């Protein structure tokens, strides 16, 4: 498979290890990534305040990928949700599409929503295939308990996103289990991480984060596995803020899925940015078989 890698704003600025680990993993599994430098904000942060502007942002990205005739490979769940939403609207609504194209033609772009938007996890599951991943695993984990955090904007609204069953999703769990780790069932696994409110209502944002952490920890998770920069930063940086400001330590480190997978594929820990997370995850290597 070949796709345009969409990084968005947060990953290059604040979570470079998500980019490097994703590139390493996808490269190993034969997915060819094309970089489109002109990609801009996905539009997600503008949805609350200006839906038209948000759609225009998303549409420009879709148009750039279409120009190269490539599907988009998105690492962020919020970005995925936004781009899929825009994709759906643009395909459906001729007037909207024309309005957007009037603005895009100024820079020689046109959107028609005829290539696909895919999340990293979908690419691994559907395009690469779980069997291929299993075959490539050289160091499977043993005795490792992982809590998968699906992320709201990948699952819902399911009629637009088609990521997985919104009530009982299994895609992410299957991917985690392919590495030999055990994906545990936990009560709050489909809930929000709290990130959308960080900066506008920190108390509520942290309450939601704590509920998730407590639930995963209660279910016996060693790590919380994520596939979104917002969720990751919430469980990583904000978990530390919670510890500092609220005095509660949930002791549950988040790990990015490509970091988890990469180690079991035998990829170098430096390339996976294993030492770059705020909460140390290097002890996950102890679970790898020799």
């Amino acid at each position: 498979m070949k796709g345009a890698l969409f990084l968005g704003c947060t990953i290059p600025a604040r979570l470079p290890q998500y980019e490097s680990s994703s590139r390493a993993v996808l490269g190993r599994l034969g997915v060819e990534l094309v970089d489109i430098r002109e990609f801009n904000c996905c539009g997600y942060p503008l949805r609350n305040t200006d839906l038209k502007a948000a759609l225009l942002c998303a549409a420009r990205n879709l148009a750039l990928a279409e120009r190269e005739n490539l599907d988009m490979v998105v690492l962020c769940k919020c970005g995925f949700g936004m781009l899929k939403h825009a994709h759906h609207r643009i395909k459906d609504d001729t007037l909207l599409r024309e309005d957007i194209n009037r603005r895009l033609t100024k820079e020689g772009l046109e959107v028609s929503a005829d290539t696909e938007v895919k999340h990293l996890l979908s690419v691994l599951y559907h395009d690469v295939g779980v069997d291929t991943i299993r075959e490539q695993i050289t160091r499977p984990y043993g005795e490792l308990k992982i809590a998968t955090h699906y992320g709201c904007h990948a699952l819902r609204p399911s009629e637009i996103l088609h990521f997985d069953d919104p009530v009982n999703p299994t895609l992410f769990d299957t991917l985690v289990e392919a590495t030999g780790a055990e994906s545990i069932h936990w009560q709050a696994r489909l809930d929000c991480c709290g990130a959308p409110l960080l900066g506008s209502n920190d108390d509520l944002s942290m309450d939601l984060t704590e509920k998730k952490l407590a639930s995963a920890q209660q279910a016996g998770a060693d790590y919380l596995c994520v596939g979104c920069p917002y969720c990751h930063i919430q469980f990583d940086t904000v978990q530390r803020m919670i510890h500092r400001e609220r005095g509660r330590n949930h002791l549950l480190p988040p790990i990015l899925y490509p970091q988890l997978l990469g180690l079991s594929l035998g990829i170098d820990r430096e390339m996976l940015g294993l030492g770059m997370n705020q909460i140390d995850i290097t002890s996950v290597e102890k679970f790898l078989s020799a």
Partner: protein
Amino acid sequence: MFYDISLYSSLAIFALGFLYKVSTWFALKPSVDSKTIPPAQRVASALKGIISTVASPKILTLIKVFLLDIVLQRKVLKEDALRWSAHLLLYGGFMLLVLMHALDKVITAALFADYSSTINPFMFLRDLFGLFMVVGVCLAVYRRFILRAPRLTTTPRDSYALLLLALVMVSGFLLEGTKIGSYSRYQGMAREYAGLEEEEEMKPLTAFWVANFGTVAPDLKEPFEAELLEAGREIHEMSCAGCHSRPQWAFGGYSVASVSRGIALGLDRAGIPTLLWYLHFLACFMGLAYLPFSKFFHIITSPLSLLANSVMDRRVSEPANIATRQALELDACMHCGQCTSRCSVGIVFEQRANVNILPSERMQSLKGVVWGRHGDEEELRLLFDGAYLCTNCHRCTDVCPAGINLEELWFTVREELFQRHYPEFLALSPLSFYRGLMRQDIAEGDYREALVRTREAVTSGYELLKAQDRPIELAATERELSTGLLFSDQARTFRGCFGCQTCTNVCPVVANYENPKEILGMLPHQIMYAAGLGIRDLAFGSGMLWDCVTCYQCQEQCPQGVKVTEVLYELKNLAIHHGQERQRFKG
């Protein structure tokens, strides 16, 4: 005399302007925490910082930055090869001309004992460097006025700078060209260097120069007899060749001379070469005097900004020095527009006509604010909106060829404007995520107060919720909502709500509170119902709108297919739109 007076007065203006500008770096207060630091302390901190940096291993970083980023302009090359070529030609040609040609008596003559402006290689190089600049100016004009990258703007300052450069170049080449053809200049040289007084005496040499050096004489025309030319060559080789190369080497001037051959005599008699000389040096002196106040000042400030930013860190460096650096950065911006072309939300400008969305333009507004020149509240509000409409992706800062820490400036200006008690509605969105992560850099009280004020501003005026015992008047209904003027078809689904409360029951925000109505105002199902009835105020006054995490649980599970989350999104959009209108009205 006139030359000296104009030279020294423009030098004086330059020096005073330069000192004034430098003094402002220590006096301007770009950030909240710089307010209390007196200028004297900032000067002392800067000196201390410079000395301790130069005497540390950081000197290696400074050398590297000097070579790669200042001399070779690595950052520009990475972004745009055309702009890099234009800039290198312009600044390379400019620097070399200043050193070799403008300061020839001071520098070139000191380095080369037999220096003369009319001899090679200097004669050729002057035109070559001039050509560099002409090509550079043409490329710059092409980029700004013909190519016109999306959202690249050109201010009068940009145009003045190009115009001045073009004036210096054109007057220079014309001057050289008319001098080559000038008979009186030739006569002057023949008298001074060959000692020839009478026209008859000069005849052989004149013939030789007319034939070979582009001189246009009033009564001598080609063809010449071989003997006459031979006699001329002898005089030439004896008296002239030692310090005058063939003017063909000055290819720019010679082209002008060739083209204007027919009118050269007239030009000479009318004193045009002298006039062009005045024009040329006056344009140069004007540039010199104007330099500290023009975009040319970046010749000095951009390298300083690059050097300072390569060794400074907001978390470690002294606040006094951060303030000084930020004031310097305002001068270091040369409005090249590279930040805007990389800006992640630049495209939004096509939807919201606020130039402050574009970082290069925001920088111009910011200069106005820091210099105390800001116009009205409306301008400040637009600056605030533009600065908040930023995802903090760091791309502007990464590509800035002057090394300006733009992201830090935006952070500073946002907090500064919050302190001036402006509400910023965009703060009620994930655009605040970065501010949340950076909250340890903001005083706790200021951090929270800004959010509380913004919440109050967006819900103010919607009093229905507070008067729960009063019957709702029908006049309060809003056609805009109930008739479905909303943006998307999806959002109109709220009409299907039959009040089953599923949305409210699955909402994680509602579940977070023991008494949610007290905190959130109306709950999701009530908002849907209010929207269905067209009672705008009930929905807009609810905290629930702003505490929605957009997790889509409500929408996914609604048995009636109401797109609850999309409706909430649209209500937020409308509430903010109305809030902004109210602010504008107040302002």
